[in-house]
């Protein structure tokens, strides 16, 4: 090498052992801790889902009593959203790969990053320990008033839940500050806006949404805590709408906070496994940003039966429909990337195809419900449950597993077993559809969500039984993933760039050293590693 640059570890060598993890400010270790934490909550919340499905498998079952049932679906939803999907995508993959993909040595504020993680873990433990010891919220993840007021939810469980979510909000808001500053200021030389990897674009958009939406929810949560404990008068009488507005002002963007990073992930994986550049990179970037902006203007579509002024409802119906346009742009771009590509059907690509198939179904049922008359019919029915599981499991979770299979070799230095990976995919894909597709019909047949049981003779028996069987197939597929992850210890060693990727994380070793890159690379296109391969003669 002609011009030697001595590797500059920015800090002392990392400590090893437990202290090395507890005291770390390395974005990769923090990312791994986020992933492990989120996956643990995924298992916990998944087990709750199995109990829910057992309860509903047949009419008038009493696996758990109705109160416990309420607590179960409340914690299932809260944990899946706040403790699994968001921290996994934003905290886990965002932390680990944003600095690597932009050619940085770490995030802009590494200590703040560690703080975000520990406060997130603390909040998760507050909620989980409260749950284990019986201090359980039972007002659903939406915590609608008046269910969540002192009168209807008198136990301390509700307060513990509220405090947990407030703490999570603080952690993710600070994390968003960190990501935005990192992406703005830490990019490698030459990485202009259009050369920023799609995943990083998605994470930056997500960070803007987290930054601006979360504080409004925090305000609402604090108001509710005060109402419950200090006798303030915010959510009394006719002001249930106030909570709904403030809650959905955050929680609708939260939907995009959960899906945009997953879209970013598959925008990275599909080109690599199609051996083609991403079709219409700029269109995908622009539609990501537009989804992020429009995401702030659609929240009232959750309130079409709440008595909002019809003129306002129509405005939000319009914005809701409009958001399907940039989403459709992305779907067509992914399809065009796949079209004519030299497809390499490894597990990461399969997961992406699973994402596409299921997310499009969820997207279409979303547009249906964006229409006021349809929504007023299916509101609070199992149709809604089917819809959001198709976007959040079919979208986000397939995206998460795609990322785990794609980036797992980079993180661990070992390759996953392909056969087990494919088995995992197929079982998960089939199990998922068996579980959630019947819920569309159940919803149209009038089955309300959140009911603890139902009488026979309403035509809901078969659909529920099928869904429960599907749920166990789904759970079994996750078990296969866990086995695959355990087998990783003896897996084949991963090279630096096992998939012939496009982005900078593949230019360093697997796993990367603490300082990420020996020298900071200079970027000349949106596919720096592809350029490398073109310039270097193959052997």
């Amino acid at each position, binding site marked *: 090498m002609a*011009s*030697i*640059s001595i590797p*500059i570890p920015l800090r002392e060598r990392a400590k090893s052992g437990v202290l090395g993890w507890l005291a770390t400010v390395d974005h990769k270790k923090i990312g791994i801790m986020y992933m492990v934490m989120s996956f643990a909550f995924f298992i916990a919340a998944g087990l709750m889902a199995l109990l829910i499905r057992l309860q509903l498998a047949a009419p008038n079952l009493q696996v758990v009593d109705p109160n416990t049932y309420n607590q179960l679906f409340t914690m299932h939803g809260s944990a899946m959203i706040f403790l699994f999907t968001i921290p996994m995508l934003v905290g886990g993959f965002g932390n680990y790969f944003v600095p690597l993909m932009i050619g940085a040595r770490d995030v*802009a*504020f590494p200590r*703040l990053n560690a703080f975000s993680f520990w406060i997130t873990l603390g909040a998760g433990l507050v909620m989980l320990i409260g749950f284990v010891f019986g201090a359980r919220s039972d007002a659903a993840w939406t915590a609608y008033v008046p269910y969540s007021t002192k009168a209807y939810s008198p136990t301390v469980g509700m307060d513990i839940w509220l405090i947990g979510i407030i703490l999570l909000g603080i952690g993710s*808001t*600070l994390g*968003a*500050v*960190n990501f*935005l*500053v990192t992406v*703005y*200021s830490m*990019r490698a*030389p030459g990485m202009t806006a259009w050369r920023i990897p799609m995943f990083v674009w998605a994470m930056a958009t997500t960070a803007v949404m987290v*930054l601006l*939406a*979360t*504080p*409004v*929810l*925090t305000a*609402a949560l*604090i*108001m509710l805590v*005060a109402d419950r404990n*200090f*006798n*303030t*008068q*915010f959510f*009394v009488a*006719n*002001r249930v*709408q*106030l909570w709904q*507005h*403030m809650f959905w*002002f955050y929680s609708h963007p939260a939907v995009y906070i959960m899906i945009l990073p997953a879209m970013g992930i598959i925008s990275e994986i599909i080109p690599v496994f199609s051996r083609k550049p991403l079709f219409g990179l700029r269109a995908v970037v622009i539609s990501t940003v537009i989804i992020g902006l429009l995401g702030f203007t659609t929240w009232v579509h959750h309130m079409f039966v709440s008595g909002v002024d019809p003129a306002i409802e129509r405005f939000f119906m319009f914005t809701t429909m409009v958001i399907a346009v940039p989403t459709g742009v992305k779907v067509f771009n992914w399809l065009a990337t796949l079209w004519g590509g030299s497809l390499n059907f490894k597990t990461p690509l399969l997961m992406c195809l699973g994402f596409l198939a299921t997310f499009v179904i969820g997207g279409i049922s979303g547009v249906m419900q964006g229409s006021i008359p349809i929504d007023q019919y299916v509101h609070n029915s199992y149709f809604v449950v089917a819809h959001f599981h198709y976007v959040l499991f079919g979208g986000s979770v397939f995206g998460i597993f795609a990322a785990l299979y794609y980036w797992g070799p980079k993180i661990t230095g070992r390759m996953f077993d392909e056969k087990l990976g494919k088995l995992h995919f197929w079982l998960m894909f089939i199990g998922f559809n068996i579980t959630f597709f019947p819920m569309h019909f159940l919803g149209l047949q009038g089955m309300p969500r959140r009911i603890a049981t139902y009488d026979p003779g309403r035509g809901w028996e078969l659909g529920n039984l099928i869904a429960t069987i599907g749920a166990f197939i789904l759970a079994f597929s996750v078990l296969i993933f866990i086995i695959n992850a355990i087998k990783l210890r003896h897996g084949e060693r991963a*090279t*630096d*760039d096992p998939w012939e990727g496009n982005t*900078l994380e*593949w*230019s*360093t070793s697997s796993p990367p050293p603490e300082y990420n890159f*020996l*020298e*900071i*690379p*200079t970027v000349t296109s949106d596919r*720096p590693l592809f350029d*490398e*391969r073109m*310039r*270097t003669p193959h*052997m």
Partner: protein
Amino acid sequence: MAQVSLRDRNLTQTRDVAPARQKNVGLLGVSLFIASESMFFLGLFLAWFFMRNTSDAWPPAGVTPPPIAPAIFNTAVALLSAFAVGLADRAIARDDRRGLVGGTVVAGALGVIFMAVQAIEFTELATLAQSSAYGSAFTFLLLFHVLRVFVGVILMAVLLVRALIGHFSSKRRLLVQATAMYWYFITGVWLVVFAVLYLIG
């Protein structure tokens, strides 16, 4: 096929110098934090106006709004303190450490006076908060603003100690700038709080 990595190659330009945009990382972070803080207050203000618009009377019958005089006094205090912070920031920009210390002391002291006046207000607000949504929202806006003032005063104390030790110079004044930004933000929020709670009502 050989594995290629950027670090193996000569073509790669060796540049490990921070690009120009890394210089203001701290201030960018503070600006973004202030953006999220603004959204918190925006949430509270929207709640205020939502409840105002959906109530028959605002403030409701039987509830008297708190007196405006202390708030006017505090508005003057807040503006003066922002001015003092500005002077401190400008002083250190030209390496005037005494100016920094003086400005910080004045701003911090004014912050404490502001908090003291609010504390007296709160003795009456405690009952107002439980009387009606009007009182609750009124108290919340004052309370969460004064909490920021408290944070600002702590920042001033840290700034003062570090200024006395001699940590700051014209080239090294990020914390001074960051504190000043946050202080301006708190002052700005106060002006909106004052206008909404006392003038618009």
